[in-house]
């Protein structure tokens, strides 16, 4: 497996490990397993890993790899190769399945009707299709805790808005092409919004600041506006 990884220099302090070139859950699981192994067994000069769909970027401190014959990049690659040799061979499996409550439509999801009419189905059908599937978190990016989810049904696909909204409320659940995602913080964005979750995806004051982790699975379920507000009120109370 690891003979297939390409090690590419990326900036002065980064190495991009290329595991493949097409979106594939097995490859992606391998990336998260590798990232975890390196995080748990850091080499001297290791800074962090940034996993993505088919790549894993490792950031390091070149000042720890000063040598008169070899470049810092070559030496850091050797370190990573060494670490990966001791990584156990067992197959990696998907992480936890996390259920996310969503209040669909109305002010919570102003584009629900639009997504329905684009696909020639009713809003309720969009909701049932969206809540039926189990999604896989390929990576986090774009905003803190923002999951790139794979596995959405083509029947509810919808293009990005031609003009992005300047501000999208946090917790908004959106669709862009054949992707679905959740906005953890208020941000501008062009996804079609079908609902909103009261669950917090980004909690910067916690040791582990994000709810979802790459490799996890996500399932959405529908709640009413009353349940949404009750959830929020309860959370405020606990704060």
């Amino acid at each position: 497996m690891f003979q297939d990884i390409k090690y590419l220099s990326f900036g002065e302090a980064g190495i991009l490990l290329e595991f493949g070139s097409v979106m594939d859950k097995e490859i992606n699981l391998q990336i998260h397993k590798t990232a975890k192994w390196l995080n748990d067994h850091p080499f001297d000069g290791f800074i962090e890993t940034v996993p993505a769909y088919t790549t894993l970027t490792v950031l390091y401190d070149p000042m720890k790899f000063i040598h008169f014959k070899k470049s810092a990049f070559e030496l850091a690659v050797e370190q990573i190769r060494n670490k990966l040799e001791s990584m156990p061979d067992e197959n990696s499996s998907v992480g936890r399945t996390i259920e996310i409550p969503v209040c669909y439509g109305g002010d919570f999801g102003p584009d629900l009707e639009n997504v329905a009419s684009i696909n020639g189905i009713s809003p309720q059908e969009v909701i049932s299709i969206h809540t039926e599937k189990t999604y896989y978190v390929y990576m986090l990016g774009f905003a803190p805790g923002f999951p790139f989810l794979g596995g959405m049904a083509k029947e509810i696909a919808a293009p990005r808005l031609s003009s992005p909204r300047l501000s999208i409320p946090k917790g908004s659940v959106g669709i862009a092409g054949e992707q679905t995602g959740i906005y953890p913080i208020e941000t501008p964005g062009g996804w079609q919004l079908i609902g909103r979750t009261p669950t917090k995806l980004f909690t910067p004051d916690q040791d582990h600041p994000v709810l979802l982790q790459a490799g996890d699975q996500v399932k959405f379920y529908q709640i009413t506006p009353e349940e949404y507000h009750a959830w929020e009120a309860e959370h405020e109370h606990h704060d």
Partner: protein
Amino acid sequence: MSITIDKPGMLTSLQDLGRFSYQQFGVIASGAMDPFAHTAANLLVGNPANEATLEATLLGPRLTFEAETYIAVGGADLTPSLNGKPIQNWRTYKINPNDVLEFGKCRWGCRAYIAVAGGFDTEPVMGSKSTYLRAGIGGHQGRALKEGDRLKTGSFTSTFKPVSLKWLMSRGLRTVYENMGRIRAVKGRHFDYFTSESQNAFFEKEFTITTKSDRMGYRAEGTTLQLERKEEILSEPVLFGTVQVPAEGNPIILMADRQTTGGYPKIAQTAFVDLPKLAQAKPGDKVVFQEISEEEAQINYIIQKIQLNYLQTGIRLKNREG
């Protein structure tokens, strides 16, 4: 001791060298746009390189100091003055109670860094004091400074006593700002995706930094860059200085507040040692990218870090003489 913000300036925020270990969760790195000026200012007041400084943009703040300390300003020349008397960048100054540091018009550059001995006493968020403006975390209450804010400074012990306040950081160390319009860069991962005309134009033709430029990224305009291979690119990490090209063909140079990942083709990676030049560039400024190898970029990076280590050692030795 504390510092009162009498006037906040255009955009003044606390920044250190960035927030790492959390990019895997989509948390952006942030940090000083000009890491060289930030680091030099810190070293001049005896702080470690990663202590927070105040990053001021074009129009600097007006600050009143409550008690005695030392300060240094690095980066842009925003005509700093202390109690109405002009002071120089790249130099350590002693501050007495009620002293006022003020900035005037911008004579050169874009971003100035104000370092205070002992640093700023603010709780690091996810290991960093950098302000992440969009998420409202880090720095001072997660936001840019406002009039009336009071910033607590770190415990400044008497260990730092500059003997000679006349010493100015040497010009040799400031060569980072020579040839402001020449930005060295390494070919990006998707360089071959572009047409040969666009490949040539990228490393030969002039690009103008547009007004659509901020801490997140600079949009440049010049030759429209076109793709030969229009393949869908899966999102993958981007770095400080990554140059990506969206479909309309104008390059975006990603800066300190860049997102952690991006899905546009990467035409180039700006050399780390030339990021300070970009940080000091203003809308309307012109740049030409010059190709260098990965090896050269990394060697330059190491040399600059060694120079800053020398500066740190030099300052320590000088201050021990008395």
